């Protein structure tokens, strides 16, 4: 059994009448990347805040690195690295100064921090930007500087709240590469994200939250296999919506309609695709079921009013 680095047990939190987190338990093993996914308002950020001791749970316990939150909050934080949803970089400081000043908050000596800065800049592909201020950096560079800052104390566990939201594909891929490198180095990661490809690529295990409750937990591939048929055929174009009323429906184990598109979930796509060839005006897309299908199945396709 691997050592549990971080354990959350039976966490509850309510704000007034609204229950934001309900009986949530999970743990992170050493070297693992746990992804927390869920629609807006699912309780992801509140959970992270409780994990960081910024919000006090109504009930439940959080233990990290053999210590208890919130009692040992500062000692725990000394060994955590945090990248929050919004960048909190110092706009008046250069990249190097941002790292130096942040390292001091951990009680590190200047010489000790300065010795780490070149490697941190190199890791975040910011060596050429050492003396640039955050205002001169692109969105991706800022996020990487935030990541470098979170690594200044060489933490065992990283807590990343939507680390790639708002980034372009190149910047996201670079971020993923760096996070994978950290996992290879043996660091553990707790990550929230809205990107299913990110979750699938990085996370060893996933936690699906909805309305403050855990609705699924497991390895990404296992979850897909457990909840979904292996194949998806998307059909769109004029007359697509009527298909769900025809005998074609029997060829799929499950049919969903979203907007102008019909989704056929099936274990046998061949016969369905054969039958669809009788409708040349329709466009079809045949692909394996993915995490996004799972997410939509578990949390619904509707846009939430509070989202």
């Amino acid at each position, binding site marked *: 059994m691997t050592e549990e680095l971080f354990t959350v047990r039976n966490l509850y939190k309510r704000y007034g009448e609204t229950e934001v987190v309900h009986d949530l338990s999970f743990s992170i093993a050493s070297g693992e990347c746990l992804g927390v996914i869920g629609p807006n308002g699912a309780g992801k950020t509140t959970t992270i805040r409780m994990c960081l001791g910024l919000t006090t749970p109504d009930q439940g316990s959080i233990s990290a690195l053999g210590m208890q939150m919130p009692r040992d909050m500062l000692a725990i934080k000394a060994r955590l690295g945090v990248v929050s949803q919004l960048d909190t970089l110092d*706009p008046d400081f250069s990249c190097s100064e941002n790292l130096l000043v942040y390292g*001091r908050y951990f009680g590190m000596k200047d010489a000790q921090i300065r010795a780490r800065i070149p490697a941190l800049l190199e890791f975040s592909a910011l060596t050429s930007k050492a003396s640039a201020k955050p205002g001169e950096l692109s969105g991706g560079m800022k996020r990487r500087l935030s990541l470098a800052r979170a690594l200044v104390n060489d933490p065992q566990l990283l807590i990343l709240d939507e680390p790639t939201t708002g980034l372009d594909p190149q910047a996201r891929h670079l971020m993923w590469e760096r996070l994978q490198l950290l996992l290879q180095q043996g660091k553990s990661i707790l990550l929230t994200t809205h990107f299913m490809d990110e979750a699938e690529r990085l996370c060893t295990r996933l936690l699906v939250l909805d309305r403050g409750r855990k609705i699924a937990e497991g390895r990404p591939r296992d979850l897909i296999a457990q909840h979904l048929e292996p194949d998806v055929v998307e059909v769109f174009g004029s007359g697509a919506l009527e298909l769900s009323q025809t005998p074609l429906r029997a060829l799929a184990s499950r049919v969903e309609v979203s907007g102008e598109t019909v989704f056929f979930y099936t274990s046998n796509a061949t016969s369905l695709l054969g039958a669809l060839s009788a409708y040349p005006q329709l466009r079809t897309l045949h692909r394996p079921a993915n995490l996004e299908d799972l997410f939509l199945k578990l949390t619904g396709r509707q846009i939430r009013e509070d989202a």
Partner: protein
Amino acid sequence: MPHTASIALPYGANSIWRAPAISLRFWPVFLRNLLVWRKLAIPSLVGNIAEPLMWLVAFGYGMGALVGPISVATPTGPQVVPYILFLASGSICMSAMQAASFEALYSAFSRMHVQKTWDGIMNAPVSLDDIVFAEMLWAAFKALFTITAILGVMLALGICHSPKILLAWPFLFLVGVTFSCMALVFNAMARGYDFFTYYFTLFLTPTMFLSGVFFPLTQLPPWLREIAEALPLANAVALVRPLFLDQWPTDIWRHLLVLLACSGASFWLALALTRKRFRQ
């Protein structure tokens, strides 16, 4: 496995009114502000020093010529002094008040709310209490830098000759502490910069006119004078002015106590309100 252990906290440990818990972790936060200031020191000093000096020179020499020497009550009897000396001793207290207030309102709010600097710091092992303490001390030091430069110019201009004005230095630092503590209360309650206009217009401006900076408190009607004497700035002026006039202040402990009590109570209130703001 049913497991509903609640978090074991002693009674009141989670109250926003619990005692301040200050540690040496405040120091890197103070250093952070100092490092930013070092980069912007010149424009910042020009703003903090040039303006009060222009007021002093324009009013002191201009109005001073109209008003003539004025008579100030001292323990050794009434003393006749040039208006500019009278004004300088009051306006230096006012400068300390303003420098600390600006820093603990506009600048602290920028760091707390706009730049989210505090949130970033709290992801490191630094508590909110230490951050608020560092901000308070920083604003007081900013006031100290300002008044040090102004004192230097006053000496250079020969407005004041008494070596005793060097003793005004610690008192003026305390004025900085008092007003930064008070400003942090409003910082904790603010939703935007506009909110500070209330504090400046409804509190600091009347304070300025009621604290004996521009004219002696004896000019006020007795009922207003009683209120005025309780104002922290009036107590600060009562400590600092005699030193400028080469006298020793009287009732030192009473004035100090007013400033210290004001600082302590405001800091605690500011901390409680800031904890409430950050607890969600």
